[in-house]
């Protein structure tokens, strides 16, 4: 289990848990970021935000978020 921030561009991983406040976790879940979902890193940068693909949707995740999302590569 690793933070999403360690996943390379173009790689896929499965979401395990989101380590954030209840409200944010719920919001992410309603956007499709639920446990077990497959996500692909479409765009990433060393210090900037990520673009991930979840269920065919592209989401921008800020830098802070990316390190709070634990995934199984």
């Amino acid at each position: 289990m690793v933070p999403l921030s360690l996943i390379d561009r173009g790689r896929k991983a499965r979401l395990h848990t989101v380590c954030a406040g209840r409200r944010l976790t719920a919001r992410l879940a309603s956007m499709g970021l639920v446990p077990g979902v497959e996500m692909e890193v479409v765009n990433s940068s060393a210090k900037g935000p990520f673009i991930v693909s979840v269920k065919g949707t592209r989401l921008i995740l800020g830098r802070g978020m990316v390190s709070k999302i634990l995934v199984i590569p």
Partner: protein
Amino acid sequence: MANIMRVAEHQNQRKTATRSRHIDVALAGNPNSGKTTIFNNLTGARQHVGNYPGVTVEKKTGTCEHHGIKMSVVDLPGTYSLTAHSGEEMVARDYIINERPDVVVVILDASNLERNLYLATQLMEMNVRLVLALNMSDVAAARGIKFDLGLLSQLLGAPVVPTVGHRNEGTSELLHAIVSAATNEQPEHVSVSYGKELEDEIGRISDLITTSGTPLGQYPPRWLAIKLLESDQDVRKKVGSEEILGAVEQTAERLEKLFGHPLEVIIAGQRYGFISGACTEAVRSTVEARHTASDQIDAVVTNRVGGLPIFFGLMYLVFHLTFTLGDPPMGWLESLFGWLGKVIDSWWSPGSESALRSLLIDGVIGGVGGVIVFLPNILLLFVAITILEDSGYMARAAFIMDRFMHKIGLHGKSFIPMLIGFGCSVPAIMATRTIENRKDRLTTMLVVPLMSCGARLPIYALIIPAFFPHSWHGPMLWTIYVIGIILAVCSAKLLKLTLLKGQAPPFVMELPPYRLPTLKGTLIHTWERAWLYLRKAGTIILGISIILWALTNYPKKTDFGRVYSAEIAAAESAYESDPETLAAKMDEIEQAMQAEELAYTMAGRIGHAIEPLLRPMGFDWKIGTALIGAFAAKEVFVAQMGIVYAVGEADEESDPLRERLHESYTPLQAFCIMLFCLVSAPCMATVAVTKRESGSWKWALFQLGGLTTLAYVLTTVVYQVGSVFTAGAG
């Protein structure tokens, strides 16, 4: 529970029976599902824009007819779900529950079905008759996605109609489905099953709600139970009963221990599971490659190296086109008003003094006409912003700017209101609602007026061509806008370091696929803008122009310091043989007389009173009066300059305003005028909307005072430093 269900069904049937000739339809859907296009297709021009009562969410309504059956259609705000977290979502769900529309149409982006169906699963729980519009089915087909419509409809318990919004395909089929859904005596009903543990609790809690007798008749008990388990604050407040809330809390605690995740996450997971199940059965993707054209564009546009230059290049293109394409129609409008002025002038005998003629020509045409002339520029700017928004580029700009915005303590989302601010500060400040964190929202709101709005464009459009060579026009305009952006960024940083300190909050945002903006949508949007601008010109700007005209004309001076008639006579006899010198001499005398007349009027007196204050910035009292008017609406600056320079000139061929300005001011002064107008006091409407959105006068007045001080200091520095340089160069 069964009892209540029967009552609700009975009510529905009665409604259907008595109102069979009229159907209430509500359109729901995600923000990028093409909902507005479908709404435009259904209702055409029969639209009405208003607000939902009590909130500032825009409400669009319209009517249409299908085989003699009348329908009223409401375009609900675009939302991804129906939680209590955002105003838009609350509005949408309250509308459905309180107004009980006969049919709710969910517009789904067929190329992104799973995500889009999430909203539909929530609507299923609200006991409404659903019709699903599988929109942009052409895009989905091009991507090799195939739908088994019959099976999909069966699995989701609602008719599914494929549509292609931008080509107006499937509209009559959709209307047909709406009518049959509304008249269907036994609508089928499917709902998400949340698994045994959750379902048991949902059943127990909804029974508890039914038996407790809380007056929540219009809310389906199952929906209430689910919302309570999702800890929906609004529903908790509505239910209020300690007994029920206590039971919910116990259940939630137990289940969360069992599942190891918050219940909201479990419930969302089950909904996505249900959707995923339906899609696996009824949707086939023949093409495996998920890298679409949209991703390929993104690889370039959101590129680490290329992203920023592309962004600034696009911005430059927007301002360049605004100017060059707007030029010819502007010339036509100018000639139109010139001709109108001559026609009105011909109603009076030459040389006669008439207050009405002066009011019409100097006040109304000089003021309002001077503002309307810039309509082409404004429209082009709005077309450009609409295209950037509708194409999906705005969200990319947020992504590109995020790293940068992070440095000033905000995140990329704050950049979207700033971009909208190029159009108008009022919707831009309203767009800050998408920012969840209050401190961030306030910071963004306070700096938005620094993004140069469309109303300031006429000022630049008047001044730049008057003072700068043609090849400078585009770059000059671009510079002004960039100065605004830089100032906004610096002010935001300053605010985040001092008054509104705080950590940058998490940044999550949907990145919509690129889409070709539809001509119809762009035209409708642009027309709305044009109409707003013209209405403003016809009401507030007309009113202020008349007031400013009166202030600039009255009181009339009768007792002059010099005896002009004697001077004229003396000049005439002295230069009788030299008509050129005579003309120059006469001009000089006339200008001195006008200056004395103007100085005597109310505007002159106010202007002179504040002139010492404006001197350091290089402004004279004429600019001073225009700046006062500009507080009401920025365009008034142009109107007032027109009025000031037209006074006393009605009986001769008056120079176009630009030439007069060129004679009166230096390019440095011209630049200072633009700089001050860019930064200073936001207009009244902006102050009012800031007050409303921030919830207090404190922030609105802080914005007003802060920006004006900034403008004053900055313009003074630029003028003083610039004067030293130009003097040195000269």
